[in-house]
């Protein structure tokens, strides 16, 4: 094509691949579900937690062996670059990146770390019981067999109980932190979309580069 000298608008990042999109929205939906819509400790809550764990595992595996811009190497955690990017953003002059921008990358790692804490403490609280086991236990209790409850209670020292209580505490604090981070994440996407004049949400939804 002729006239390449005119400044073509800088190429947007490549399409987000389906795994990135599915895990992103799957995790978002699971977090909303478990934070606002179901009861902690319920079968639904535990099941969604396990789904969340699978989604996170998939995304982390994809971060190790997925295509270039989904890999961790495309967005290494770099607090200095993140600060620089935020300063650029405040001045409304951001430049596009082939993967996450440095601030967005840091947010991704923060969200994943917090999610991991929530998941691990959740597992500690349920004694690592799978949803199938939780369902069995609940069915047993519902049918009047309370031994399932006693079994988990016996042989538990004060130390165990304190540990469980601490896990519960951490689980709640981390879950709240997760919501705060998610809110910041939304604000960041909004500001970045405005500064780039590009709908970043649409790119994550459809995978198509918005014009």
């Amino acid at each position, binding site marked *: *094509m002729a006239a*390449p*000298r005119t400044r*073509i608008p*800088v*190429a947007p990042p*490549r399409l987000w*691949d*389906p*795994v990135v999109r*599915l*895990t992103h929205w*799957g995790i978002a939906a699971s977090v909303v579900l478990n934070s606002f819509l179901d009861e902690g400790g319920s079968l639904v809550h535990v099941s969604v937690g*396990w*789904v969340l*764990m*699978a*989604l996170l*595992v*998939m995304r982390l*595996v*994809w971060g190790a*062996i*997925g*295509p270039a811009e989904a890999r961790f190497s495309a967005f290494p955690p770099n607090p200095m670059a993140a600060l620089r990017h935020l300063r650029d953003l405040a001045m409304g002059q951001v430049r*596009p*990146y*082939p993967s996450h921008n440095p601030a967005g990358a840091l947010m991704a790692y923060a969200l994943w770390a917090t999610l991991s804490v929530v998941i691990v403490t959740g597992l500690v609280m349920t004694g*690592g*019981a*799978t*949803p*199938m*086991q939780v369902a069995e236990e609940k069915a047993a209790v519902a049918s009047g067999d309370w031994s399932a409850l006693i079994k988990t209670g016996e042989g538990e020292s004060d130390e165990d109980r304190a540990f469980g209580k601490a896990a519960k505490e951490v689980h709640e604090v981390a879950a709240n932190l997760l919501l705060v981070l998610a809110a910041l994440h939304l604000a960041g996407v909004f500001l970045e979309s405005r500064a780039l004049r590009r709908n970043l949400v649409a790119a994550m939804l459809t*995978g198509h580069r918005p014009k």
Partner: protein
Amino acid sequence: MTTSPEIRTAGRRQTVALSVFLLIQTLGAVFYVGDVIGDLRDDPASAHFVFEAIVTTALVLGIVFGTFALRRTIEVLRAQDQALAVARGALSDVIEAQFSAWALTPAERDVGYLALKGLDVAEIADLRGAAQGTVRAQLTRIYAKAGVSGRAQFAAFFVEDLLGSGIAPVEVALS
């Protein structure tokens, strides 16, 4: 890029389907691994545990291979997209995208373009009203960011795409 041909749309749909499938498999694997760990604590010697552990291992291996296959598919699709874009004469788009990927500054982009057009250092310096030393330093930075040894390899980086799509039909004919 303008319209997407049916083949590419079909390829996209295939990657989405593969991703969904992979996610469901991962879901299953995570539940099974949890169950196996639970059994391990109960009775690691039972046939039930051994059998379940083998099945779970197979499942996990399947997921790992599936993930690699999916990545390959996505990369092949992208390579085809890129080859198509080059063939359509959208080379400047490709160069622009590649410059972005290398994170070239606006000044480096201009110099990079001029260098690709075959201008030498003196001409570029003239055009940009800059010192030759500056242009030389900018070129060095561009080569470093692109990971190429010099101007010839820098230009070859983009010509390679064109050659690749030219040779492909021959390979198809041979096989």
